[in-house]
């Protein structure tokens, strides 16, 4: 019998260690596996690569992940903290201790989707002629100057969803989905955090992530801070 549900956070995050790469879904406070991110903060794994749209929501709920210098690289489209002050991760970047690869958000989503779909690289006009296109192979298609972008895959993906069934099928609500499907495709181990991990199957035509992309499901209450949209 297929049952991807795990009972403990330890089992959900088993295998994350030094040098692991982790895709973290979420946008605007929704679709974020806050409980798993807080659990990651309490682990000791170092030299992590985090792949996420914006850094500040992770730093906002689990500040020791960066504070303890456990991240060596971030791939993201937004690396600015709130307000005027320089955050710890911005300081690490300015001092050359943290590598931040800045990626246009659509290229970010497509590199991850490509990784999950077996496409090794693709050409896009986005970022051509800009600082973020520098150093990339350039080629012209249909009169458009394009840059070559390579796919992203990772060891783990952490995703929050409204519901998952024991087969790992996932359903989102509202704008919860964001990077979830692409990240589930691109990770070797995808972990779904949900408030409802059900025995009953989700209606087949109402599934947002097919269970084939999902390895683990854990039922956990939403640990989002009340102002998560502002993180």
């Amino acid at each position, binding site marked *: 019998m297929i049952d991807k549900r795990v009972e403990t956070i330890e089992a959900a995050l088993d295998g994350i260690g030094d040098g692991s790469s982790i895709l973290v879904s979420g946008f605007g406070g929704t679709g974020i596996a806050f409980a798993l991110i807080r659990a990651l903060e309490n682990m000791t794994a170092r030299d992590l690569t985090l792949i996420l749209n914006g850094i500040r929501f992770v730093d906002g709920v689990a500040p020791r992940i960066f504070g303890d210098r456990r991240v060596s690289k971030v791939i993201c489209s937004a690396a600015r903290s709130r307000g005027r002050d320089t*955050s710890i991760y911005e300081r690490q970047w300015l001092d050359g201790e943290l590598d931040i690869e800045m990626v246009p958000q659509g*290229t970010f*989503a497509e590199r991850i989707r490509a990784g999950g779909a077996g496409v090794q690289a693709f050409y896009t006009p986005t970022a*051509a002629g800009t600082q973020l296109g520098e150093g990339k192979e350039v080629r012209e298609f249909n009169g458009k100057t394009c840059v070559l972008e390579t796919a992203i895959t990772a060891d783990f993906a952490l995703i929050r969803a409204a519901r998952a069934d024991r087969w790992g099928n996932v359903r989102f609500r509202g704008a919860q989905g964001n990077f979830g499907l692409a990240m589930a495709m691109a990770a070797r181990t995808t972990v779904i955090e949900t408030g409802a991990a059900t025995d009953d199957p989700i209606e087949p035509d109402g599934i947002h992530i097919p269970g084939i992309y999902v390895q683990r499901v854990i039922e956990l209450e939403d640990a989002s801070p009340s102002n998560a949209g502002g993180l």
Partner: protein
Amino acid sequence: MQPLSRHQIAWRAAQDLLEGTYVNLGLGMPLLVANYKPADRELMFHSENGIVGVGPLATENEIDTDFVDAGSQMITLRPGAALFDSSQAFAMIRGGHLDVTLLGGFEVSASGDLANWDAKMTHKGQLVGGAMDLVTGAKSVRITMQHTTKDGAARLVETCSYPLTGVGVVDRVYTDLAVVDVTGDGFVVREILDGLPRDELQARSGATLAFAEDCGVLTAPDVGAG
């Protein structure tokens, strides 16, 4: 007439959004544009976190934290809305399905280059978001911005001094003083603020302005708080 307020610039940009179009509004002044959509037109607002059909901001008893826009604001959906994932949201943008993107700007060059993502802050991290995708993918790229900086420096320039968001991408610029198109021959003023002499507008611009034969008067009703 006084230079247009931020709300009046947004009002002016809203008048050019045609019936039935799909539009993405950037953070800041462009988001105000939704407030001034002509009442008789049905528009679909796209949000790059996975929404077409963004409605008004949620009121206190409508708030649902799973319904947010690209600016992390709690929103409602309008009839006909659709929800999808980020890859789809950007396929719409990059695949040329979006009619209009309205964005803020630091500088626009006479050849249509846009600089709007990196203010070169020395103590803060960078943030690019979806701007580079929007300017290369949308059918029409329109910018709302003040005509000059607070110090009076021109924002319509020959060559951008800030890092570029896109090369040769801008179609139209709405400022507090004028509506300016970017053409193959450089800037062409379509409307100029009521009472502002042409040489004065030119003096506040960093590149040569041509004036359309039918160059009109830029006016806006007294909208918003300013």
